[in-house]
């Protein structure tokens, strides 16, 4: 830990971690999406948009949980604390994603652009907060 501390700047560390989490989560959701299609059929109407939403959702969730994992790791009681901390914070994003993805299944509904922009804004907010707050978690 002390070695990391001498090696890196906290900002670059948290950005790298968030980026890694995001990419990993997008890859995992792509694989699981593929298996869902193979095993359970394809009810999706707007294919490209749905894949985009899956990536957006996975990326958003991994950003929030990436930062919460940092908090939970400092509290030294990982699994339970992280679930308690994460559940309320994640609900607004999950509600938005649910509404967004339900439009991809119906040929009648249009995809609401404000919701997508709101999710992107939330992602930007999480990254900004992580950059600002992580140095306080980092130094001991």
């Amino acid at each position, binding site marked *: 830990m002390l070695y990391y501390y001498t090696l890196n700047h906290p900002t670059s560390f948290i950005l790298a971690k968030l980026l890694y989490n995001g990419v990993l989560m997008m890859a995992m959701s792509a694989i699981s999406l593929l298996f869902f299609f193979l095993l359970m059929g394809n009810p999706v109407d707007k294919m490209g948009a749905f894949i985009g939403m899956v990536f957006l959702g996975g990326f958003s969730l991994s950003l929030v949980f990436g930062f919460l994992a940092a*908090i939970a790791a400092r509290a030294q009681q990982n699994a339970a604390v992280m679930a308690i901390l994460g559940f309320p*914070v994640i609900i607004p994003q999950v509600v938005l994603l649910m509404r967004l993805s339900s439009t991809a299944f119906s040929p009648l509904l249009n995809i609401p652009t404000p919701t997508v922009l709101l999710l992107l804004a*939330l992602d930007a907010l999480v990254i900004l907060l992580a950059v600002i*707050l992580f140095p306080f978690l980092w130094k001991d």
Partner: protein
Amino acid sequence: MTTCLLAYTFLAGLLGPVPRLPLLQETIRNLYFHVCMWFAMMILFTISVVHSIRYLRTLQPKFDRAARLYAGTGILFGLLGYSTGAIWASFTWADPNIPLLDSFSTIARDPKLIGAAVALLVYAAYMVLRDSINDIDKRARISAVYNVFAFVLLFPAIWILPRILPSLHPGNEGNPALDVKNDISAGMRIVFYPAVLGWTLLGVWITQLKIRLQTLVDKKFES
């Protein structure tokens, strides 16, 4: 001052003239209590976050103590807001022809109720996080970070989300309760604004007393 304002709220709120709106009737008097509770809760949580930020900037334990106690009082006002809201809803939203508990399941799905529940859960999680860390400095720093993170992420979300989703709860257009034209009449506003102020000051007063007590306890513990 708080006592005067609250005495005025109770007297004018229970006796003063109110417009008779369909469905609401006399229950509109609950506006002076229910809405004020949520205002007070949000203001107290905001004060708590400001203290957390000040703690992170200065690392003085008194700000951490204040942040924790303001959050605690905020949770109290949130619970009071829920109970007054439940009383109100049981007279206005609930279908009188079916048992109250059956209409509860449709009422409880309302996005605003969920948003408020999320806000209370965040601060419950804040308390859990605080108590799970033994080291005092570390506890103060980590919980301050979580407080800021959760507040900034959550409050835009609970202010924006309910305006997108359909809801039974009034206040979807414009600013809830502050809309001059539609929501409340001029006579009610004379009572409502002092009521908000009074309840908020009551919360601040309670918290100040708790902070003083906690400071003394900490001092005794140290010596």
